[in-house]
């Protein structure tokens, strides 16, 4: 076991995968010599050579398009989109190509690619470095969508993603790179080295895609969250003293519906939390599924806590970010209902 930040865990996943399989290649903007703007690929070019880890032109459609072609050849590209906000030029390649190649060719060709992308706000990135576009991926059949919340999961899930036979969108909450940020931006963040989930095996291990994890057992209300919001929810639960069960989805597509339903049937209440904008966000899907399957177990309307339906502002970042205060109020609201 080693202590790793989420950056180191992600890097270790790529390192282990490149070591085990010559077909794994890593590329993207600034990922080669420099090792990426967040340093996730640092050292990989030196270790594996520049034909397996290299810099790409600033062309996301080109990065994803070439990755699709490489996958058709038989490679397993794991590419970095420098910020999730930059994926839009590649959206056509992702949705109409990567997601459908297996289906439209009836398995004649497949597309085992991973798109890693730093996601979410909390670093004063403004509208173009803070977005959480996961719902734009979960709406697309043929993709898998993963959002880890800690180093241990990040490594195990990224290894699974690289080994997966289908395209995986791997959204890395960048505010969690260095510690379990709980939304209290005015306090120093505990480093991952002091957190149990910062303890990461150095070798190969895989966490299955499609399995949620219960981060806190509770009986009063179920909180469904993923990424940064897992830690925000845990803080809100602690601060309100409400005995909530906190589910970390880890993978949005496929979704571990059973874990959610079992919990809501037990608690009778549900709050869904995400940083992405509210309208047509993934929380809407979770809320719909919960009412569809648990309507007669519910004792209160399902409440969603999300980013406001506005672009991510710069100066007012902390008024936008759904922090522990807002989550706490939502918990109180469902308990009162």
């Amino acid at each position: 076991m080693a202590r790793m930040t989420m950056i180191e865990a992600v890097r270790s996943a790529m390192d282990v995968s490149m070591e085990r399989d010559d077909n794994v290649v890593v590329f993207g903007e600034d990922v080669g010599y420099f090792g990426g703007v967040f340093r996730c690929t640092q050292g990989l070019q030196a270790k594996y050579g520049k034909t397996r880890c290299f810099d790409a032109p600033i062309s996301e459609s080109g990065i994803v398009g070439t990755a699709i072609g490489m996958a058709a050849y038989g490679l397993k590209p794991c590419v970095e989109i420098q910020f999730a906000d930059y994926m839009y030029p590649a959206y056509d390649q992702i949705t109409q190509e990567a997601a459908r190649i297996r289906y439209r060719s009836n398995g004649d060709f497949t597309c085992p690619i991973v798109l890693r992308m730093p996601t979410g706000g909390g670093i004063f990135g403004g509208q173009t470095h803070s977005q959480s576009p996961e719902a734009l991926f979960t709406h697309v059949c043929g993709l898998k969508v993963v959002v880890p919340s800690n180093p241990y999961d990040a490594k195990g899930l990224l290894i699974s993603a690289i080994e997966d036979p289908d395209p995986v969108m791997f959204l890395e909450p960048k505010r969690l790179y260095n510690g379990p940020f709980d939304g209290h931006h005015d306090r120093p963040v505990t480093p991952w080295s002091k957190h149990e989930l910062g303890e990461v095996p150095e070798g190969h291990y895989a966490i299955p895609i499609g399995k949620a994890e219960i981060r806190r057992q509770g009986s009063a209300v179920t909180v469904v969250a993923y990424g940064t919001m897992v830690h925000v929810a845990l803080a809100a639960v602690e601060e309100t003293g409400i005995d909530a069960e906190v589910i970390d989805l880890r993978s949005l597509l496929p979704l571990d519906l059973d874990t959610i339903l079992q919990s809501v049937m037990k608690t009778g209440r549900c709050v869904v939390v995400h940083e992405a904008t509210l309208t047509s966000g993934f929380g809407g899907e979770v809320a719909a599924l919960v009412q569809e399957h648990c309507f007669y177990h519910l004792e209160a309307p399902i409440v969603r806590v999300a980013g406001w339906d506005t672009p991510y502002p710069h100066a007012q970042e902390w008024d936008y970010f759904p922090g522990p205060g807002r989550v706490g109020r939502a918990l109180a609201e469902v308990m009162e209902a």
Partner: protein
Amino acid sequence: MTEFPQLSLHVPEPAVRPGGQPDFSNVDIAKAGSVPRPEVDAAPETIRDLAYSIIRVLNRDGDAVGPWAGSLSDAELLTGLRHMMKLRAFDARMLMAQRQGKTSFYMQHLGEEAVACAFRKALKKGDMNFPTYRQAGLLIADDYPMVEMMNQIFSNERDPLRGRQLPIMYSSKEHGFFTISGNLATQYVQAVGWAMASAIKNDTKIAAAWIGDGSTAESDFHSALVFASTYKAPVILNIVNNQWAISTFQGIARGGSGTFAARGLGFGIPALRVDGNDYLAVHAVSHWAAERARRNLGPTLIEYVTYRVGAHSTSDDPSAYRPKTESEAWPLGDPVLRLKKHLILKGAWSEERHVQAEAEILDEVIQAQKQAEVHGTLHAGGKPSVRDIFEGVYAEMPPHIRRQRQKAGY
């Protein structure tokens, strides 16, 4: 007051519209045999002229002339002629089948048969094409079974794609034919990625990208050229300039650049323009580009100058946007007739044998169609299962799709 006049927007127009006299006098056509053939390792900057000329081998009399002649034997040319004739006959039957309601949609190759048929012969087994919807010649020239193509077109119970794809959007890894998207230009950059992968693995295979004149306006075209030139990928970047993008003439996509081939020059990619209706010229130029790729010299851009004689698809009527007689005025002629003339001139072929071959080929196509129709057509007979809707979205069916399949009753 300003010293400048009011601005005005320039919207290009084709030379002639319906009702007018077709006029291709603005198409500058080099004399057959007049364009030099450089060595494959020539520095791109020394052969920039090739992007502005038209490489031609067959002259008006049917002779093969100049430095690009001689890449194929008579036997190979006879095979090529047969491929083009087969594609034409296949198209005619499938167009009729669409009109009879046996499929929803069809796209023919009329006038452009030489491009894909001759190109295929420059590739080897294991190389990969990333085609558009108008390159079925790649399959025909690689002897992919016509009945399989028809099963796909009819979306019947033997459809290799299980009814999921629009007619003619074939896929065959075995025949080096990447699954056609139906989306435009996306495959261009994917071909570059495939070629990069071959180079990463120190393989010997090369890739070919295909695009039409209209779709070169898509950003993926430019992404492809950036990646291809940056990494010197072993890829042939083909542009089929058939003059029309549905109803839009090629001047709308070309903008102010002299030719489509010239777009490659800014990237330092050797760019050649070739007579797309000249089987010999298409083969010679493709072969030159393939050799460059195989020698690790990097990408080559080729513009095939041709003319789409038919409609874009079964969903449009060209007489609404161009003169009906325009195709007859097209100065580069008919690829089948030109190759036929050449072979007759050489004594390798005759009118009688041609008529006989036409009959044989038609019979072959009809037999294939009969075989395919046994397994159904779009609205009659055997069809793919409803279950096939849900299969194959992922390698392993996730629970939510399984629930939906059960809900659908399968």
